[in-house]
């Protein structure tokens, strides 16, 4: 999956709201859509996880292969996975 990464995908970015966040490195407020910088630290998200299988028919949707139910429970690429015990980075 090729995705353009932005501040929103960075672990140094503390989201303030749906538009902007605080950079823990620079202590400045940035737009979440701003381009990644040299301090970029990948935020664990489903889209970066080996367990995530994108649904080619539905945009922004997929399944979590680590789900223990059948059929597998859905997942979505932009969900933060910091606390997910099954997260395995691609």
């Amino acid at each position: 999956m090729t995705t353009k990464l932005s501040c929103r995908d960075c672990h140094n970015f503390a989201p303030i709201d749906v538009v902007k966040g605080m950079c823990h490195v620079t202590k400045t407020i940035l737009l979440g859509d701003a381009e990644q910088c040299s301090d970029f630290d990948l935020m664990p998200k489903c889209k970066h996880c080996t367990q995530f299988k994108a649904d080619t028919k539905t945009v922004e949707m997929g399944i979590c292969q680590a789900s223990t139910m059948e059929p597998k429970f859905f997942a979505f690429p932009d969900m933060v996975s910091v606390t997910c015990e099954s997260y395995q980075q691609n």
Partner: protein
Amino acid sequence: MPKTLKDVLAEAGTPMDFESGGHSPKEMVDREVKREPHPRVAKLKEIFMDTLSSANNEFPYWYTREYALHDTEIPVVRRAMSLKSAFAHSTPVIYPGELLVTHKAAFFRGSFPMPWLSEGYYMAKEDELYLEALKHGSASADEHSKFGQGGGNVTKSFGKVISIAGKFGMRQEEIPALLRLAKAWVGKSVDDLGHKYEQMVPGYEVKEALMRNLICMFDSGYTLPQGREVINYYYPLEYGIDGLLDMAKELKSKVAGRADGDGIKGTNRLFNYEAIILSLEGLKTWFENYAKEARRLEAMEKEVIQKEEYAQTAARLEWLSHGKPRTFREAFQMILTVHLAVLNEDAISGMSPGRIAQVLHPYFEQDIANGTITEDEVMELLELYRLSISSIDCFASTGVVGGVLSGNTFNTVSIGGLNKSGGHAVNRLEYMLLEAGLNNPMPQPTLALLYDEKLPEDFLLLAMECIKTGVGYPAFMNGQNAMTFLMNQYGPEGMTSEEARAWAIGGCLETSPCCWKPLHLNGKEYFIPGGAGQPTSVGVHFLAMPKILETVLWNGVDQRTGEQVFAPHNRSLSTYDELFDQFKLYWQETVHVLALTNNVQHDIWRKNNMAVITSMLKPDCLDKGHLIDEKGYRYNATFNIETAGTITCVNSLAAIKQLVYEDRTVSLDELKTAVKDNFGFKTAKEVDSFSLSDQQQREDGTGKWDKLHFMCLQAPKYGNDDSFADEILLDWENFLCPDSKNYESLYAHPMYPCQISVSTHGAMGSATIASGDGRLAGTTYADASLSAFPGTDRNGVYALLNSATVWDHTQSQNSQLNIKIHPSAIQGPSGSRKLLDLIQAYMRKGGFHIQFNVVDTKVLKDAQANPQNYRDLMVRVAGFTQYWVEIGKPVQDELIARTEYEGI
């Protein structure tokens, strides 16, 4: 140019901009008292002021995913498993400078949907589910609720941000997940199941008509099933999470398989304790995850002071993930995190922290004495707390969040009151809490001062200083009234006068039952107050009295929609007594059917969605092994009946009584025709505004209603110490209060009246045609339950107080009176003294609640025209404080039009 209502009122001698007791200066006058918070707080507040209400799907995702795994599990255990997973997977977020951490969701002002309560309104309009939701009555409330068009509300979608319910922003990329989660709950949510079963209540079609026509504002069962109550922090403070886990495990083993004399629910205790254990494990992980985040930030931080603060935060959270708080800082962090945990368990409005300065005082006293904290450091934390609590959003539909709540979530903190032995309960920390409200004026926590004659004079005068900042707090509540009410309502459940003293305000001004518990700290015992009762956000909520009067006049038909709401009464209404009698009959029919359907909804809630975390905190659930659904709480008689538009209805009845039945200057039919014709004015829809000031006469009007409209406007009005109008209020209260006891909650207790309007006077007014008092179609009702209609209280403020106290307020959970005062009227120490005298006069007359907007009307007008210049302007609406830019225009208009007292 057509005449406006403003012109007509001026001609009638009742101008909208009425100034009582003098005239305000021509120039705008700012409030007298202004202070600044600590620099750290100011910096974080700056972020808050520019923060959008934001929502994501993380919590509902993990909740739903876990729930789906356990479809054969016992309901209470299944729910706790889901909560545990959701808490354990919530992403921690900490911002530089924070000393009190944890947020509801991973945003500064975050929240999330709870589709297990109600899923319909998350759907886009084209979605089949949304269309289905439109068929339900609640969609009408959405249509008549408008948010303030500013502040942190995401009223419209923009860019990749989708506006949900006119308030919350969600990233576009999360919408498919939102819909997927919502669909997972179709037919299973409390809303859907409740709807399925409430239809089995005889007369259900009346209920649906009441909702569609906005005679009732909302169903509490699936919108806000908890809240307007006081939380209890005692157990986590006294035992810590590990202590509670040990206790629950021990009790679980003691009751497993045992009925102990209760053959119906005795064995349920096993499952309840199991649920408590699971929930505590989820909370433990939540603390741990925040601690890990603080450690991560500590490791990467280069600034020495910030690095140390992260380290201290991490250590605090690591300790609190298992141990009981030992210091003021730990105790404060514990109660904040526990509070947010409760708010994440359910859609809750008005989970009030209660008397936190009395709860935290043992830690404060000891830490100050041993030098581990300074008063300045405590003040900084108190100021930060205001920021944390103001950041709380409640994710619900527009109708509820906008039309009812105006975006506020009513986490009211109470101060003052009496201690367990009957002395005043004011301590040093209470003074500081007031000072923090002065230093960092923010909408929350709103402060409620539990008034008693024993309270120290300097404390009361400090409260006057706070009021003079214009923040709308502290509100004054009559403690003696409250305790009388509580003893009457909860005496049958064992309340003693000693326990009644522990009371506090839940929500904006709901008298709530509490209790004392013994806290032990370093060998000393302190009795601290905390909530012990079920929610009071529950029951029959917001009944539009003016609309019920409208249906009486038109034989059961709503004149806005033309729908037959009630069966025709076919009475001639030839006397006032017959009219009032029919009003009471329709009222009773309304309450009867809504009480039954609400009972069904709440029954679904308690069976499938019961409170586990709140229950664990509330005495005596842990001791008994029964949660809220099994009456584990000490006090369960909390369901109530909420009114709206009391004074508009009283004024209308007064006008009809005088003009039609006593003076006979007009026939009832003629008055009805004039009312239906909106007294010759355009409809609010035609003007495209529900604002009082924007209403215009029809250009082609003949002026045939001008004289009658003038008479209606001149008819006796409440608020002038005029017995003609006041006796109608008295008659109403003498009916309402005892009648409320005739309806039984699902917990088999009698109900009682709750007389607050919150923001419903705006939304419900918008759905009401003109009324006999001369009010025009679509415009707002009088604020609260005892505030005068704008511009009609013309005999001075003490006359208003006399009118408000013609009835016995102790029969009701509350009453509500708000007054607007120009800052110049109460300037200086003598102004403070006069204001306190006024309040004490009201309390001594038996009034329950009084609060003030200390503001120059010119400022409000300028703020309406130039909202960009007034992001931090706060006003008092009904029972709460809110940012001006975050309330709807109809309510803004009512505030502008309200009588401004220039002298008291």
